[in-house]
């Protein structure tokens, strides 16, 4: 064991510039990978939070509204309303239907624009009646929208998800971008580890030759290289975890969370998951390239 440790140490020392290069590459790529994991969890969290809140709004015609399904100058009739409500309630995708009257809409408007120049610019009569719908599965909104969008008396169907989906599309792109960039960097890191270990094994090929000759086990021969790679990878992983913790504290908890309070934000438990992922990938990235790189020296 003493021999193994001293060999590991001398390997690291004689290869110090390569070891540092490996550590830095591991640090950057694992940080990016961890950030990707955090971003993924954040987007999932936001999807959950926002999808829960949003609903489909079916706006009904009033005297001022224009649209293919409205009779100009007239409010929606009671019959039309009943037909729309029935269609909604019979749809299996619909969990809840709430009818918002003109008065309620007016109150909402007054509340939303209180103290602004918009306050008092509209009357109760100008407001639109609407149905507010919650869905069983927030992802399945198209069926409900298409069921009511052409019905007489429906002025417009507003679905926030259409807006949000575009946002999430961009966020998804960002997620994948991070994952792909970090995968490329991790590939570079693993190749660098393989090269470092190959060089170290080449430098010690005399010793390895004698070890094989006198009957040292493959595991024993490989152990110093494995330890060398593991130490570099774990230092890189520790630095990456530190970077993630700093980012978490200063970017998320002190900036983003304060700035946008409406959105749910990832916490330390999510950061812990990401760091766990970083550690596992770091260990795999140390072991696999080392096994590949030393294989040709260990073939019996």
């Amino acid at each position, binding site marked *: 064991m003493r*021999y193994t440790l001293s060999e590991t140490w001398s390997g690291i020392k004689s290869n110090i510039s390569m070891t540092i290069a490996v550590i830095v590459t591991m640090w950057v790529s694992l940080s990016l990978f961890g950030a990707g994991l955090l971003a993924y969890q954040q987007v999932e969290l936001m999807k959950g939070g926002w999808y829960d809140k949003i609903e489909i709004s079916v706006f009904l015609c009033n005297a001022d509204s224009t649209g293919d399904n409205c009779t100009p100058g007239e409010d929606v009739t009671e019959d039309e309303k009943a037909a729309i409500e029935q269609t909604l309630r019979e749809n299996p995708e619909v969990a809840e239907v709430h009818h918002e009257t003109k008065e309620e809409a007016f109150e909402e408007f007054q509340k939303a624009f209180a103290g602004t120049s918009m306050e008092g610019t509209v009357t109760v009569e100008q407001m639109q009646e609407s149905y507010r719908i919650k869905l069983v599965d927030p992802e399945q909104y198209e069926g409900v929208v298409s069921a009511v969008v052409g019905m007489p008396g429906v002025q417009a169907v507003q679905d926030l998800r259409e807006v949000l989906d575009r946002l999430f599309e961009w966020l998804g792109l960002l997620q994948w971008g991070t994952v792909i960039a970090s995968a490329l960097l991790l590939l570079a890191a693993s190749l660098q580890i393989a090269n470092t270990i190959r060089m170290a094994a080449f430098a010690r090929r*005399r*010793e390895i*030759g*004698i*070890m*094989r*000759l*006198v*009957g*040292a*086990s*493959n595991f*024993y*021969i490989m152990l110093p290289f494995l330890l060398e790679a593991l130490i570099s990878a774990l230092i890189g992983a520790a630095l990456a975890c530190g970077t993630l913790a700093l980012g978490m504290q200063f970017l998320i908890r002190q900036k983003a969370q304060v700035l946008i309070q409406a959105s749910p934000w990832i916490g330390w438990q999510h950061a812990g998951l990401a760091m766990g992922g970083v550690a596992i990938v770091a260990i795999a990235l140390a072991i696999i390239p080392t096994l590949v790189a030393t294989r040709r020296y260990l073939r*019996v």
Partner: protein
Amino acid sequence: MHPLIGGAAALDSGHVIRFQDVTKTYEGQRRAALRNIDVEIEAEEFVFLVGTSGSGKSTFLRLILRELRPSSGSIHVAGRDLNRLPSWKVPGLRRQIGMIFQDFRLLPGKTVYDNVAFALQVIGRPRREIRSKVPETLELVGLGSKGDRMVEELSGGEQQRVAVARAFVNRPPILIADEPTGNLDPATSVGIMKLLDRINRAGTTVLMATHDSTVVDQMRKRVIELDDGELVRDQTKGVYGYQ
């Protein structure tokens, strides 16, 4: 018998190396490097393996070490059927065989003691055992007072003695020497041969590949001769060439 020798792991009586109809053809080559070799080497024998370069001596030795596998036929070494020996048991086989080379293959930058101790360290022997066996073996090869010297400071003959000590420190039942006197002057060669003879008399089987006719003629041991991959002579108390 030298009082320090002994303790070489005794094998069951009978052969320690047996080739049965062994043929080895290297990949991509039409001519076989060894053809239909049948040979048995008994425990405690001293055997010379002679033949010109390219006659198949190296292939023969590498087959014993299981660095190569035969194309056909079977090889038994130290009670193991090498065709059935899984890779992970190859280190166990090699612990039964001490190996010496023409170019010594010592580790430069290490002392004589460390070079010999290395062979025990890397197979995980306890430090106590190393501390007793290494000086004992250095004493045996006549380097008892030179343990602290760097190997590159030694003469060729002394370096080969270090190599013998390293090969023998684990007391293997088989010692294989590949041209051990090839880089040494005749007087020094005699010293190395005396050392190998002593190790052999203490119960270790010695197989030595050589070009050195003087050495073979002096020793009068069994001679196996390979020529172009075929076994052309197996003679007890032989000499290098036919008389």
